[in-house]
């Protein structure tokens, strides 16, 4: 069979991937730079292809609560938004995490804080990885670096979400959403037919009703639920760490960057090697759980670690935890929709570790 290769924008590709992953429903509200997701879904009319429901909610707050309800019924559901919209959803995200429900969230990050700009950014790292909403919960966070990965990770995100009954977020940005790249799609997955044993779908011959809540008014019960969550997160940390190493075997220096910034760093590595400086790249793919061990091991081999982000230093804190004082960790970042260039990144590394 001929390969199913298309040239697609990241946002359109995410929408198509959601249909193919057998999603039951999409609830969302448009916001630049990811409005193409809902536009594509509305134009494609997946209700005719797979029966998938697509609904534009009246706000992000409504959308995330529709996700909460449908996820409680055991459905494969997703929403997409961009930074200010994701902020509006935080209460619902905390409830979903507390009620231990699976769903997929996509944040096509734009510059902030506040209403900010519509240009690309990575300033929502803390919000995605460290919390965002209230309470001791974790999102499993995947950071694609290409249109192809945006597609593949939608399918992966649904699988992980259902494996752990936990919300999974794809953290991308305006570059990945707006650019077109070659992409190969996986085959259409069938929508789920069997009800999940925990889903609120009536008694369904079980003799009891399932109950979905994030309200546990007795402290002892709330503590028990928290311990259960923590046990689950330890499992996630054991099984779901993902990262990529590029040219690290002989590297004297190491870039750590994710998503779009990792792509730019790859180019900076090439430029460095043309100048005789051996630089490698570690690209975290899962931002939670974080590849602490992989970075810690590389810290024994290199002379310096440079973290590059489209913000003023968020992931760098996790890199410092990973390096654990073994050597100096440098940082270079641009924010507010300004994207660092390959030569700027290389210059920052040279200034920090070589020309000092």
């Amino acid at each position, binding site marked *: 069979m001929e390969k199913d*290769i298309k*040239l697609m924008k990241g946002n359109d590709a995410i929408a198509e991937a959601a249909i193919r992953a057998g999603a039951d429903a999409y609830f969302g509200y448009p916001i630049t*730079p990811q409005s193409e997701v809902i536009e594509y879904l509305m134009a494609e009319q997946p209700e005719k292809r797979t029966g998938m429901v697509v609904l534009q909610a009246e706000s992000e707050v409504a959308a995330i609560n529709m996700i909460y309800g449908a996820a409680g019924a055991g459905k494969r559901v997703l929403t997409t938004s961009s930074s200010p919209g994701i902020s509006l959803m935080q209460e619902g995200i905390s409830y979903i995490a507390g009620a231990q429900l699976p769903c997929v969230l996509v944040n096509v990050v734009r510059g902030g804080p506040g209403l900010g700009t*519509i*240009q690309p950014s990575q300033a929502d790292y803390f919000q995605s990885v460290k919390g965002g909403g209230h309470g001791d919960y974790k999102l499993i966070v995947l950071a694609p670096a290409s249109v192809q990965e945006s597609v593949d990770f939608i399918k992966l995100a649904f699988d992980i979400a259902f494996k752990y009954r936990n919300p999974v977020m794809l953290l991308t940005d*305006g*570059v990945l959403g*707006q*650019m*077109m*790249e*070659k992409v190969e799609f996986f085959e259409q997955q069938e929508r789920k037919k069997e009800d999940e044993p925990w889903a609120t779908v009536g008694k369904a011959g079980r003799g009891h009703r399932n109950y979905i809540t994030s309200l546990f008014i007795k402290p002892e019960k709330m503590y028990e639920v928290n311990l259960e969550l923590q046990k689950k997160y330890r499992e996630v940390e054991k099984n779901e760490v993902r990262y990529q190493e590029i040219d690290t075997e002989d590297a004297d220096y190491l870039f750590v960057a994710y998503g*779009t910034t990792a*792509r*730019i*760093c*790859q*180019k*900076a590595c*090439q430029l460095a090697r043309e100048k005789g400086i051996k630089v490698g790249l570690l690209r975290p793919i899962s931002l939670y759980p974080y590849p602490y061990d992989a970075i810690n091991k590389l810290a024994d081999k290199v002379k310096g670690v440079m973290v590059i982000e489209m913000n003023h230093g968020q992931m760098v804190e996790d890199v410092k935890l990973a390096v654990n004082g073994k050597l100096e960790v440098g940082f270079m970042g641009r924010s507010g929709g300004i*994207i*660092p*260039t*390959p*030569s*700027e990144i290389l210059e920052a590394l040279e200034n920090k570790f070589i020309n000092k």
Partner: protein
Amino acid sequence: MTEEIIIAGFGGQGVLSMGGILAYAGVMQGKEVTWMPSYGPEMRGGTSNVTVILSDEMISSPILNEYDTAIILNQPSLDKFEKMIKKGGTLIYDGNGINRHPEREDINIYRADAAKAAASDLKNPKVANMIVLGALLKQNPIILDENIKKGLEKALPERHHRLIPLNLKAVEKGKEIVKIIREV
């Protein structure tokens, strides 16, 4: 081989669609392709640009600070991107509306007055972008003609397929009218 191209002009000149056709043609030729538009609160008459990277290998950064080739359709874009062309690289520009012509002596410079040729010879100002694309392909045949045709078939919605012959004629026109200003 990797070719890093910037295409820049006014919004409405067909900058993004020319880039799209080139990108689709690249896919048809089996290349890795990245098409990265400038996007923002822009409007007709504002500036617009797109980076197209065609490569035989996996493409790293979609964000670049220098280019192998710049295709320039207006003065602000010439002012911005002339200095960002790699030494020995290529600049192709439409002289329409240009007061300050390119000055660099270490790059190849070609001129194709596409807006004029589109209006007078082809009677359709909208295909000026394809004329400039033709000028590029004359100087640097990165993509085969047959793949440009296939790229057009993919990039244009079917209701516009009747315009494909005109677009291909525009590509030929570009090859005809492109003038060498300087070669290094």
